């Protein structure tokens, strides 16, 4: 099933209407785990953007040579290969971030959304749209992480990217587990509300 949308449109849909975190509600683990700091959120987003784009590109290139019966293992191999590359790069060039969230970088390998995009899009489309799809999804993911980590770091520490922005008694809870869950829950509810109020949507319950 060839996708007929233009590249820009594919990217746009990946960012907005098919946003992995807020609309589809999959691959949530890093959304909470690494978003206590804006920097971590951005790096995680970049890592996913890179992996998804590269995976989509590679899968798309090889799509005609992979036997359908063993495609899932092959995809897994490709994904884990690119994740390993990312992992090693991060370990080498962004040591402070990596110390915070090394495990979660490695766990990108188990993201349902990456495999899903490889399976449903890249394996059926040419390299160019596949890359667009990867970029769209990655940017959407990154934006979500940035939004969440923006609020969490600002409220939890009064800082952004480590620099003090406002002087107040920070809500320490926002950088703790509870704060992660509550931030995602409230943001999701807020987006649902905006969607219902202004766009007549039914609210994206995601898996719920």
């Amino acid at each position, binding site marked *: 099933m060839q996708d007929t949308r233009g590249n820009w449109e594919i990217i746009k849909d990946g960012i907005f209407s098919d946003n992995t975190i807020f609309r589809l509600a999959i691959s949530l683990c890093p959304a909470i785990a690494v978003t206590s700091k804006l920097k971590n959120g951005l790096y995680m987003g970049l890592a996913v953007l890179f992996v998804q784009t590269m995976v989509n590109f590679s899968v798309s290139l090889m799509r005609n040579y992979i036997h359908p019966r063993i495609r899932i293992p092959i995809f897994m191999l490709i994904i884990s290969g690119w994740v390993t590359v990312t992992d090693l790069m991060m370990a080498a060039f962004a040591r402070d971030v990596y110390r915070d969230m090394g495990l979660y970088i490695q766990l990108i390998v188990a993201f349902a959304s990456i495999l899903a995009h490889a399976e449903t899009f890249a394996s059926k489309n040419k390299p160019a749209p596949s890359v667009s799809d990867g970029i769209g999804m990655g940017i959407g993911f990154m934006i979500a992480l940035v939004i969440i980590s923006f609020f969490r770091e600002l409220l939890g520490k009064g800082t952004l990217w480590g620099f003090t922005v406002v002087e107040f*008694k920070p809500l320490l809870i926002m950088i703790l587990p509870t704060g992660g869950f509550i931030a995602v829950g409230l943001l999701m509810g807020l987006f649902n509300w905006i969607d219902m109020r202004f766009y007549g949507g039914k609210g994206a319950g995601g898996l719920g």
Partner: protein
Amino acid sequence: MALAKKEHELIVSISPHIRSEESVEKIMWTVTLSLVPAFVAGLYFFGPAALMTTAICIVSALASEWLVEKMTNRELTLKDGSAFLTGLLLGMNLPPTAPIYIPIVGSFVAVAITKQLFGGLGFNIFNPALIGRAFVLVTWPKAMTTWVAPTAAFTAMDAETTATPLGLLKEEGLGKLLEVFGDKANLYWELFLGHSAGSLGETSVFALLLGAAYLLYKRYITWQIPGSYLATVAVLAWVFGGSDPETGAFIWFAGDPLIHLLSGGLMLGVFFMATDYVTVPSVRRGQLVFGVGCGLITMLIRLKGGFPEGVMFAILLMNCFSPLIDRSFKSRTFGLAQKKEEKKEHKH
């Protein structure tokens, strides 16, 4: 022959046609009333600051309730007393000199998030006041564990800070606690009266018991949860709470249950939080399990955990388990036992 009202004017409704005089409002305001002695004790020991903190709590709890109900187009329920009670309970669980933002944020989290977001009174999973307190404790740990000595509030505005009895017990041992309070008898007596540092409404065991006795007498609470909770705490404190005063080495069956029963937020929690209808199991047998569970976790945290006091977390954790307990302990339907016996006979 129009003796009674005309046809369409007679009231037709479904049975039963008489109702008891109990109502949600009555329950809430009675519980509020039963908290008055403890609140007065808090005022006596901690002075105007206590009044201030509690008042802010109540006002912001009511404001949060009003705000959310306006926003979601719900019926306004300020009069039913539940938000007022939540505010009061939260206030009584805070340090008397808590900075002003603590009661405001705590009340908002308690009422808006813990209660209204889940659907309002009757649908919340967690005790609102306790979530409010846990939230501010985790958010501002320092301000929430700065305690003032009980009489200082009257003599000077800058009250002397001190540790709670449980804090002393945990950090420096029983010896230090006795050093501060003189001898054991005096320690018990002071704890009973409430002459110790702590949250403004939790220190006076005497005043709390007064309110609890009233609620028990009115049957607004039953013995199951308080009974099993207190018994578990007492037994565990006795079995696991002992240590050698010299070396600090652990000794079996040497703990002092009374210290654990009289100190901290236990009495306030046991009678006024762990008995909150909405967030505990409904069936009485399930309530026994709930009480024992609360006791276990309380003592686990007090003896082994990272916090000196465990009542709040114990009740919240057991709140998580309430739906599960409710599933497992349904009430026994009349005549069900007979049916089972019959089946057995058939098999033979």
